[in-house]
């Protein structure tokens, strides 16, 4: 299997699963304005999923469409990071998850606009604009919740403590990346982590939040080893395609 295919699926699945989580909020947001903002971000992710998985299907060359990839793989074949499949819980957890992810996605897309793979660069270019806004929005919220009331501070600090263990995986690299790195398709994840950490520190500082000092980290998503959440997400996501196989919708 080509390294590029694997890489595109990793990116595409991040968007697919995060978009799914965000769309669970639709109709239940803390205020109407925020309901609209969250669905906007969810919509951007559905769009990014479509571009990334469509291209993945083309790279693979077996005739699989973006829908085949999104809806018809088995659990162990999904490649998203564990962070994005974590449950919404409350608005604080959702925004913290979003911020930690956006702070990684933005510099990643910035790197990828310079990719030697023209189509990946084009997808990154378009997605970067959306992601900049996502990051602005989630950072604003983390700051407001962190430096809001005692209750909100405690809630997002707890969210940060619980989600921190999934952040190292954002910079996961393995054998798959070697060839892509060598060919200038993707770039160093160390650089990426540096920009991420800078952004995270700046925002958490303004939010009066503290990075937990527990160094324990979890990973597995990139290799298809997920938390128990993913199975339920897929049960919903795939319901129609599994119950009515092979039909047009």
């Amino acid at each position: 299997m080509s390294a590029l295919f694997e890489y595109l699926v990793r990116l595409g699945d991040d968007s697919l699963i995060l978009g799914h989580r965000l769309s669970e909020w639709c109709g239940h947001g803390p205020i109407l304005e925020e309901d609209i903002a969250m669905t906007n971000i969810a919509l951007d992710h559905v769009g990014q999923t479509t571009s990334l998985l469509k291209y993945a299907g083309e790279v693979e060359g077996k005739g699989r469409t973006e829908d085949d990839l999104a809806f018809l793989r088995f659990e162990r074949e999904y490649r998203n990071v564990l962070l994005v499949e974590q449950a919404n819980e409350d608005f604080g957890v959702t925004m913290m998850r979003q911020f930690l992810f956006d702070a990684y996605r933005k510099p990643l897309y910035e790197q990828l606009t310079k990719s030697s793979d023209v189509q990946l660069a084009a997808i990154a270019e378009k997605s970067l604009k959306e992601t900049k806004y996502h990051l602005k929005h989630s950072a604003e919220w983390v700051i407001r919740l962190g430096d809001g009331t005692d209750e909100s501070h405690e809630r997002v600090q707890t969210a940060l403590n619980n989600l921190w263990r999934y952040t190292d995986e954002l910079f996961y690299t393995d054998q798959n990346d070697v060839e892509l790195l060598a060919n200038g398709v993707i770039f160093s994840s160390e650089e990426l982590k540096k920009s991420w950490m800078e952004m995270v520190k700046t925002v958490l500082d303004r939010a009066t939040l503290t990075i937990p000092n527990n160094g324990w980290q979890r990973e597995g998503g990139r290799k298809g080893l997920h938390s128990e959440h993913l199975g339920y997400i897929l049960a919903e996501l795939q319901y129609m395609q599994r119950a009515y196989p092979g039909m047009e919708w």
Partner: protein
Amino acid sequence: MGARSGKCICGEAKNEKSILIKKDFSKMANNEWPLWEVFIRSKQGLSHKHVGSLRAPDAEMAVENARDVYTRRSEGISIWVVESNNIHASHPSEADSLFEPAHSKVYRHPTFYDVPDGISHM
């Protein structure tokens, strides 16, 4: 558009029943966010136009919310938000004295003047 009703001193039209301030202002210390008026300039537009209102805790969020609420179909390239409290409007009861005097100043319009046939660029 206009200032929110209930805030104006409705001059001659002051019909107490019709001014709907049944609000207990001590209760306003609840968590409802302030109201903002939103103005959008479209790509071809020469000026910002009032499009509606929304609620937001502060100006920064008001701009973001305005973007999400009022420009979902590429309606604009620039956004202004103003807290509704800060808008002061002319009152309809004064419309006569404010606007009618202009009706008689026809000489402000180019069509008031005769220009001989054959003259262009004027």
